[in-house]
């Protein structure tokens, strides 16, 4: 009896500690959401319960800047993020099949090169890339935001290679007997069987492109091409904006796609990171 009481108490303490920690940790996020409904005078107060429930902050924020509403910025972000994601996931899967299944000369060499580039900081090449894209006339278009992201990410390739190697070779051989060549095997056998890895890669790819601030900051000049991240940064200038409620409303809205995807697909994220050491 005593033992079990003790155990029960311990468990209660454990959960209280975790929940307190969780509340502290989530305070900034909850504060952002609460403040997006607050009246102007109280917008920066620490309370997590809005003094009034102003949906109107969202309408005001949505108005955007000049004659451009957030509809434009969200549309731009969706175009950029979805194209970049589709390209990156499919091309990563191709690369993973090449490295994971096909025997060819130089395979180990190129695979090691790819692993080394895992550690390579992208910012080091930002200047020559800028000069290159400038030469190509790509400044102020979506191209520099999308096309470089078609490069398979070593993280994704690594994750998918592990999946590909886990598939029994008998599948390939059966397909071969049915007359599939090395190319058809990719579409018929590999792609359908590594779906979890594809979903994990797609989610991360979408997240990173959606939140990317650095690339649009470099390449996008016209406000009508702004993605959400860049549009939000206009709120950071305290001289330009004093409507805090609208700012918090748009900040909350910009994270909404992330939260929604997270709620529906979190299983894939957690497993993806655990198996491949993906950055988050």
């Amino acid at each position, binding site marked *: 009896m005593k033992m079990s009481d003790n155990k029960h108490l311990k468990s209660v303490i454990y959960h209280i500690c*975790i929940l307190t920690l969780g509340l502290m940790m989530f305070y900034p996020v909850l504060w952002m959401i609460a403040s997006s409904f607050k009246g102007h005078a109280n917008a920066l*107060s620490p309370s997590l319960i809005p003094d009034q429930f102003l949906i109107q902050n969202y309408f005001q924020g949505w108005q955007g800047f000049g004659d451009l509403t957030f509809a434009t910025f969200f549309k731009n972000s969706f175009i950029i993020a979805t194209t970049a994601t589709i390209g990156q996931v499919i091309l990563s899967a191709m690369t993973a099949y*090449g490295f994971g299944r096909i025997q060819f000369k130089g395979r180990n060499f190129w695979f090691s*090169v790819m692993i080394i580039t895992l550690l390579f900081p992208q910012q080091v*090449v930002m200047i020559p890339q800028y000069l290159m894209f400038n030469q190509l006339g790509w400044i102020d278009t979506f191209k520099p935001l999308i096309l470089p992201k078609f490069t398979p990410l070593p993280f994704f390739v690594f994750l998918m290679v592990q999946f590909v190697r886990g598939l029994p070779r008998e599948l390939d051989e059966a397909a071969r007997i049915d007359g599939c060549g090395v190319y058809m095997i990719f579409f018929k056998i590999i792609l359908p069987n590594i779906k979890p890895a594809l979903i994990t890669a797609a989610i991360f790819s979408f997240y990173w492109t959606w939140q990317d601030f650095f690339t649009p900051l470099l390449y996008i000049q016209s406000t009508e091409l702004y993605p959400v991240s860049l549009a939000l940064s206009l709120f950071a200038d305290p001289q330009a904006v004093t409507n805090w409620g609208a700012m918090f409303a748009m*900040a909350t809205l910009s994270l909404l796609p992330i939260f929604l995807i997270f709620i529906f697909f979190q299983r894939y994220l957690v497993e993806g990171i655990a198996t491949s050491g993906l950055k988050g």
Partner: protein
Amino acid sequence: MRNYVNERTTLAGYIFISPWLFGFLAFMLVPVIMSLYYSFTSYNLVSSSVFVGLENYKEIIMDDPRFLNSLKVTFIYTFTALPLRLGFALLLAVLFNQGRRFVGLYRTLFYVPSLIGGSVAISVVWRQLFGYSGAMNDILVGLGILKAPIGFIGNPKTSLWTLVLLAAWQFGSPMLIFLAGLKQIPIRLYESAAIDGANWWQKFFRITIPMLTPVIFFNVVMQTIRLFMMFTQAYIITEGGPIDSTMVYVLYLFKQAFQYSSMGYASSLAWILLIILSVITLLIFKSSKYWVFYEAEGEN
């Protein structure tokens, strides 16, 4: 079928890895070489580049206090945020590695900050949270910790620490990696330690930590590089200021290139960054043989 290599499979292999190979050459190797060339030139985008030899490097190292300052700021940021982030990650991983109710849910929820911590939205919120009239001041004054509000962002003594705090907040992915590592530790080790009468702390320091060193090593390498490259937060929250107190290296590099149009000078800065990061990574790798414990494979 098994493991044959002929010209046909070699061609197929290269066709399938061509997306990566092309990206690697076009967006990495060629730009790196170009950047090496530009680092020996003076180039402002308008007039054509002029070869100046080692002038840029000389000026950066001998005569650029802002470079030295940015290096100092970046080192302080990286090596205070790193132990905080990994410490938090390990603590929570240990807490969530227990067979209790809701741990699956907790694990997922505590991962959320690292998912959104790099976003502009959170940076914008952080800026208001720690501003002079922001919520943090109200809380700290209300609790009696502070006598009067401080402008955390506007004060050079505190501005960098608001960024360190934001970095520590994003402990989610190392936490999940630690958790995966903890699951790999064989239970028999703990069982035999328990028979020998080891307490919780002894088990933690004699079994958990040594068995986890390969994972710690991985996290240290990845997170050091990531922290060293921090940009968005410093750009939006503090704009590098006040008086350069948060002017991290990449932000300084960005300003040289795109605000002062010194493309050549900035390319030299990029190469120095690459060298510094390589040295740090190499040092971490070299040090690993003294503290990373690899269990011999195939041993029973």
